[in-house]
């Protein structure tokens, strides 16, 4: 059984003028013990909102969060018990530690909750154990320091140690390395990977970096504008992306080993694809002239019921404009309403191209 599960999670934010923004649109996900699930997508796609909803920092508009199959506690004791088992690691280790307190203080607070009335000597021991588990040595020296005396990588280790203090089952890591220097990113990711194995943690790794997502997770979910558009085994999603958005993401990543001539060719192809998408979008936009409002509002109106990616999609078909792909009648194996793509392990894409009825009428994207 999954340790943490979200079912049809919806998070809406009230905006100025009374409109609501649906940041997360019926997303479901499962986190398994000893496994890393990566959540990738561009800024504003709703990745962090999902994390905040799972960490109960934001109240979902609807949908359920289940811990060990039981609804997560929302208040008082239930919420405290939930927080003990589900911990977060944030992007910015400069903001997530209090500059006024020592590292010992940061770690002893959560330990005190778990072990009330413990002796001072035993507490120091536990703090040191925690620091050593994240390779912060000499631990007794580090414990006496304040955050400003540590580098970014060391601070992130402290944040990880603090998350481990309550002996959680689930870690939600929201871009844990994107603020850190290149040479230490891997060390932090390797540390998280080792802790996951040693402690049998379920890890949610939120990132916009496809390469580390592939290397540090077993499954990947791709988010686009609040929806999970693709989900599957890490290698399948990155090497054989099924959704045109994932294909776009993968194609945008640098190609360090590629010869010059090929690079130029690839660039020309991308430029052509972009021009085609732009022309299509303009054509659609033309039909919405006169509806008023800002450009963004017009686009929302246009998107209406159709696929949200279609204005950027090189494979957009007529059907994409009229019905959302999630309204497809999908098989029993569907996740988030997405259609399974052929393969041994489940690999789903929320796209008409992979809907059984649409496949015959169009060439399959490769």
């Amino acid at each position: 059984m999954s340790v943490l599960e979200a079912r049809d999670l919806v998070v809406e934010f009230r905006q100025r003028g009374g409109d609501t923004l649906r940041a997360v649109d019926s997303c479901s996900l499962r986190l398994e013990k000893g496994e890393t699930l990566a959540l990738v997508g561009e800024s504003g796609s709703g990745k962090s909102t999902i994390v905040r909803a799972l960490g109960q920092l934001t109240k979902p508009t609807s949908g359920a969060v289940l811990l060990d199959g039981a609804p997560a506690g929302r208040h008082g004791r239930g919420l405290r018990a939930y927080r003990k088992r589900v911990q977060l690691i944030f992007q910015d280790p400069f903001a997530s530690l209090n500059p006024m307190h020592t590292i010992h203080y940061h770690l002893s607070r959560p330990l005190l909750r778990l072990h009330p009335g413990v002796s001072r000597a035993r507490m120091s021991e536990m703090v040191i154990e925690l620091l050593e588990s994240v390779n912060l040595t000499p631990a007794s020296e580090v414990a006496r320091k304040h955050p400003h005396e540590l580098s970014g990588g060391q601070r992130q280790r402290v944040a990880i140690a603090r998350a481990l203090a309550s002996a959680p089952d689930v870690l939600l890591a929201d871009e844990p390395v994107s603020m850190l220097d290149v040479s230490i990113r891997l060390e932090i990711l390797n540390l998280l990977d080792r802790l996951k194995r040693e402690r049998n943690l379920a890890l949610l790794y939120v990132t916009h970096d496809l390469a580390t997502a592939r290397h540090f997770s077993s499954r990947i979910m791709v988010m686009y504008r609040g929806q999970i558009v693709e989900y599957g085994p890490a290698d399948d999603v990155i090497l054989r992306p099924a959704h045109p958005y994932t294909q776009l993401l993968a194609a945008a990543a640098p190609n360090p080993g590629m010869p010059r001539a090929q690079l130029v060719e690839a660039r020309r192809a991308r430029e052509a694809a972009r021009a085609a998408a732009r022309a299509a979008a303009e054509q659609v936009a033309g039909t919405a002239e006169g509806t008023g409002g800002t450009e963004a509002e017009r686009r929302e109106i246009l998107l209406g019921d159709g696929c949200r990616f279609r204005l950027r999609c090189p494979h957009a078909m007529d059907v994409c404009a009229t019905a959302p792909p999630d309204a497809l009648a999908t098989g029993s194996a569907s996740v988030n309403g997405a259609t399974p793509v052929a393969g041994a392990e489940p690999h789903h894409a929320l796209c008409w191209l992979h809907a059984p009825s649409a496949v015959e009428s169009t060439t399959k994207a490769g």
Partner: protein
Amino acid sequence: MNDIILRAEHVSVEYAGARPTRAVREVSFELRRGEVLGIAGESGSGKSTLAYALAKLLRPPAGLSGGAVTFTSADGAAHDMAGLDGRDLRSFRWNKVSMVFQSAMNALNPVTSIGRQFGDIFTAHAPEMDAAARDRRARELLAKVGIDPDRVRSFPHELSGGMRQRVVIAMALALEPELVIMDEPTTALDVVVQREILDEIERLREELGFTVIFITHDMSLLLEVSDRLAVMYAGQFVEYAPAERVATDPKHPYTQGLLGSFPDMRGQRRELRGIPGSPPDLREDFAGCPFAPRCPAAFGPCTTVPPVLREIPGESGWLAACHLHDSAYATASVPVTGGES
């Protein structure tokens, strides 16, 4: 002889203090016209400081403490950057050398319109243009980087991050400079937007033929965009190599470490590790190689003799500052070719 656009000789930069931080230490290189030079390194390796020194943008407490930078314009005239000031410097910046900074949010003034900011550039650096010409040119430049020319009336906050970065690039190209220095131009952007900007830069370079110094910590990106790659560590170039070949065959252990810090998105899964330890304190002097304490291949002379950046035997135009590639120590050396060991 119009081939070399910029020549740096023993450039050193210090940040003043009780114990000065020697951020750039005796860096020498030649930049060929039309080339893209990529500069890589960790934070604090001195790559941005070097760029500022090349563009003569250093401000106290930073200052050039030694060396010379010579810029040769397309007409063959050589300018000694150290001697430029006042009006000469003003006509040099933007006209000959311009710079694109990392954070487009901070590079643009939030309270004036885009058109006005273009206007400011032209007023300062091309006073002969009248208002109509300035407006025309601003619109033309915006169109060139793929932005609706009517955006001259927009304010920075009305643009997305990618659009702002395009505006900053358009500004850098406003007076058709010969050299554009780009300091982490795409770091704050999403992969898809980053790719669009890179393609745009490449297309403009094809069209306008300017030379680029491209600075970023992202090795995989740098290997793709640059013709030559300089890897900086502790204020020095430790490797200076043709980018296409260094991807598969880095010579310096630090370059190997940097490349090993990036998982390959498409390649085989392999064990990955960063570079253990942390960069040295740049207020110190180094007895031997500054990378020796973190180097997996360090041997005898590394802790006592500072390595010099020199051509690797048998590799024309490929330089490394490493005793492993110094024939004087050839017998003692351990082969460290072939990337991750």
